[in-house]
């Protein structure tokens, strides 16, 4: 508290000025009182580790503390020369490309179909959304069983049609596709729900007007529905790319990054460098390189979306 409050004010101007200052201080106090519980957690468990990680990335820190001390940019230089880092980054980008497109396009198709008003609406919604409620571990247990080379349902059905069994998780050419299929099954429900909600927000009058103009169903789809959904599509593409870049759980548990590192994601590489290699400094440096990529992607998307909404 300032001492100015204690000295008696001489003029009315001073009174109001002091009153305003006090009100302002009161506001600041109230504001921080409300924000404090969040700000403390945010500071302790996000800002502090983010800064601490940045510091670690410039050290040679390991589990035992051996070789600690500042090492400048050498972790970053090592990471940029590390073929395993590039390979897992490449896998991550490949997974993002393979998963984002079907996760957006197929979810739109499902939402359009369900929104036709056919009977059994709740059942359709349930079927497509249910997997989203499952933990990654459960999803992986279901799909490891489906993909089992000798006992799995998929190869069993293939055998009934006389087809050769496929090594879904063991064949380097197929493993990533299998991971993408599992991811599609697991997470499409979220995109589907968002599209469904957006579809219901399109004003009915637009369809009536279009119908009066003689536009058929398909015409309406391309001239009304898809343009009206553009903001939702932009949002979903953004969320989806960022989510896919962070992939870890299902790959780690389905293939453990194999066969021969063909599915190892960058987050798994960060995890392994830190928690099995115990190279904390190195792991943090890769985290920050990857974070730089995420910032770039976010900025690019922000620019693209803003330009489109202006046009």
């Amino acid at each position, binding site marked *: 508290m300032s001492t100015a409050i204690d000295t008696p004010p001489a003029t009315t101007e001073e009174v109001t000025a002091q009153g305003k200052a006090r009100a*302002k201080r009161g506001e*600041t106090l109230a*504001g*921080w009182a*409300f*924000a404090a*519980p*969040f*700000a403390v*957690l*945010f500071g*302790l468990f*996000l800002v502090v*580790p*983010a800064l*601490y*990680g940045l510091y670690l990335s410039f050290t040679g820190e390991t589990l035992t503390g051996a070789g600690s001390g500042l090492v400048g940019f050498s972790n970053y230089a090592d990471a940029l020369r590390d073929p395993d880092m590039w390979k897992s980054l490449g896998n991550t980008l490949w997974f993002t490309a393979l998963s984002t497109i079907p996760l957006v396009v197929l979810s739109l198709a499902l939402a359009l*179909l369900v*929104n*036709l*008003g*056919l009977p059994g*609406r709740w059942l*359709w919604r*349930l*079927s*497509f959304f*249910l*997997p989203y*409620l499952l933990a*990654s*571990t*459960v999803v*992986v*247990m*279901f*799909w490891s*069983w489906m993909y089992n080379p000798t*006992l799995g*349902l998929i190869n*069993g059905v293939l055998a009934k049609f006389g087809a050769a069994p496929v090594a879904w998780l063991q064949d380097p050419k197929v493993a990533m596709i299998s991971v993408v299929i599992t991811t599609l*099954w697991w997470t499409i429900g979220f995109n589907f*729900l*968002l599209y*469904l*909600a957006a579809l219901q*927000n399109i004003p009915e009058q637009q369809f009536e007007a279009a119908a009066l103009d003689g536009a058929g169903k398909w015409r309406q789809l391309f001239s009304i529905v898809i343009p009206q959904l553009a903001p939702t599509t932009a949002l979903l593409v953004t*969320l989806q790319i960022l989510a896919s870049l962070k992939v870890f*759980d299902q790959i780690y*548990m389905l293939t453990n990054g194999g066969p021969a590192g063909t599915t190892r994601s960058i*987050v798994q590489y*960060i*995890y392994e460098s830190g928690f099995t290699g115990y190279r*904390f400094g190195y*792991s*943090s440096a890769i*985290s920050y390189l990857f*974070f730089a990529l*995420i910032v770039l992607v*976010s900025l690019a998307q922000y620019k693209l979306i803003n330009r489109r909404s202006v046009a």
Partner: protein
Amino acid sequence: MSTYTLSRGVRPSIKQTHKPGENPWSVSRMAALLVLAVLAVTWLVPFGWAVLTSLKSEADAGASQITLNPPDGFSFEAYRKVLSAGDIPSWAWNSLITSVAITLITVATSALAGYAFSRVNFKGKRLLYAAIIAAIIIPPQLLIVPLFRQMLAFNLVDTYWGIILPQAFAPAMVLILKRFFDQIPVELEDAARVDGAGRLRVFWSVVLPLSRPILAAVAIFVFIGAWNNFLWPFIVTTDADLMTLPVGLQTVKSAYGLQYAQNMASAILAALPLVVVFLFFQRQIVKGIATTGFGGQ
């Protein structure tokens, strides 16, 4: 659970989209129905196959012949074995405790902070707000190493708080709630303030009751995320007694080895709580996901 509608723009979910003049049994509608049915069945197959396997004997589950009519018939034997082993109930309890705590703390802190951003002009507000927006793009996965070392220093490894605290705040939810509070007319609060109610009182008795639907939406979203989170609990717990369901199951997955029926029974048991909750609160959950997914707009 509240039955408020979250957004006036969203029409009731049961809606007939075919126009009065349109034939509801037209060929194109039947074709669409067929496509939808095939897709829905495809989506349910991994689920159904897991349930079927879990009801078989281990011998039948491990047989390579695909059959819907196993020689030993169906029973709950695998479930009995898995439950009597005792790990799953205790992991479910750990999941429940930590997810409920994460949800309560996240909703409370986000609502308070969101209100401060919406209504109070305090010093440092813009800086904190900018920090929150910047934080939204930081993936928590990238902080595992420094956060784990921090937890070691705080002695929180292998504790409930170690699981809970790093998950108990959500910058995105603060923004969602701030946007919601922005839409509440200030006059409603002014009336209460004239009567001498303090900020906290106004927040509690005027703002919160008006915000029940959005708070429920945020709570649902946070709870599902916490219940299913794998990476952080996996890193911060090594003691099997403290593991959450997703983490504990991962250790069992390999331990059961070739016992496929028990493997699937434990997966089904782990999936069951959220599936049952979803069946009861389908509408609220769907709306909650849609609202929070759109950032509260």
